[in-house]
């Protein structure tokens, strides 16, 4: 079927990132909420004559920006954004949990790594009360002892007393860590966004492919967390750079995928 001359689009598409170094595909984001490219330039005008009207316009400063918004946080995408590789392996994380005593004892869920950070009795209103420290619970009323995961509190501690325990624990080996560092920034990639377009005349669907030969991640990005409203989204903003071998900032190819050779 002939590729349409007029078409409609209502699709965020799927974005695929390719390495500029060796061309390999890095990641595909199939859960975009929005995508788009904005193109700008600057025009300066020669003015003159009676009324100082614009006479000649000089265009320059061509810029294009690709904006993607993903409903899902992809570790690889976040890593591209930060410029740091994902590290897979054991990581020490902060844990805090509330434990309840029975016969002066209570156990934390995980095996603490190193010293417990803090132990507080939990007040009736849920806030932290008196701090308990490591020591001799048999003789001191605000001390505890620890054996692996089990904390022993003074004998006078009533059953059902709640303590909030802060400590470190190790993740399993599959934990993935992405981080922002002061010395690494988002890289540059070729980006291809596959979208669906519909022919105005025949109402038939066609493929569209938005190609950014060289997209550089912007270094400003936000990670927003909120307890209300829509779920948080991953915003990926890229500046379209000029290739050293081409003037193309971006291009859109509309084609019939049934006619691919």
């Amino acid at each position, binding site marked *: 079927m002939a590729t349409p001359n007029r078409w409609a689009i209502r699709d965020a598409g799927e974005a695929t990132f390719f390495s500029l170094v060796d061309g390999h595909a890095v990641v595909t984001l199939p859960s975009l909420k929005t995508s788009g490219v904005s193109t700008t330039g600057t025009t300066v005008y020669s003015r003159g004559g009676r009324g100082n009207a614009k006479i000649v316009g000089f265009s320059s400063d061509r810029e294009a920006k690709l904006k993607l918004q993903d409903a899902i946080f992809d570790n690889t995408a976040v890593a591209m954004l930060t410029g740091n590789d994902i590290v897979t392996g054991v990581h020490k994380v902060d844990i805090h949990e509330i434990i309840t005593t029975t016969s002066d004892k209570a156990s934390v869920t995980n095996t603490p790594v190193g*010293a417990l950070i803090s132990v507080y009795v939990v007040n009736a209103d849920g806030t932290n009360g008196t701090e308990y*420290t490591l020591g001799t619970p048999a003789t*001191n009323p605000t*001390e505890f002892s620890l054996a692996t995961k089990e904390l022993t509190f003074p004998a006078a501690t009533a059953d059902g007393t709640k303590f909030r325990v802060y400590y470190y624990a190790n993740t399993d080996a599959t934990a993935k860590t992405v981080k922002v560092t002061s010395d690494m920034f988002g890289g540059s990639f070729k980006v291809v966004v596959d979208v669906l377009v519909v022919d105005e005349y025949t109402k038939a669907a066609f493929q569209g492919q938005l190609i950014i030969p060289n997209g550089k991640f912007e270094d400003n990005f936000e990670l927003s967390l909120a307890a209300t409203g829509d779920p948080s989204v991953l915003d990926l903003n890229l500046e379209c750079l000029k290739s050293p071998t081409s003037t193309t900032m971006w291009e859109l190819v509309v084609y019939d995928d049934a006619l691919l050779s």
Partner: protein
Amino acid sequence: MEEEIKLENIVDTIEETIIVKSTEFKVLKKEDTAAILNVCGWRMRVYFDDILTDEQKNKIINGKCITVEYVGNLEDVFSIELQRLTNI
């Protein structure tokens, strides 16, 4: 023979004599009757003895180090017992 056994018991008793050592610990939080110290990364309380004067207590400042007597081994934090603070 009996005499020898008794002597061995005496030697054992001498070996178990508690050795009090002292070192500096950082004050993390000063309370009315005690101070929470950083002992090998753990938070442990040293209690003020009644003979400690207010002037001496005023010398205990968060973030500063104080010398505290203890028994046990610093390499095994669970063996440490901080002694009541009688002087500073």
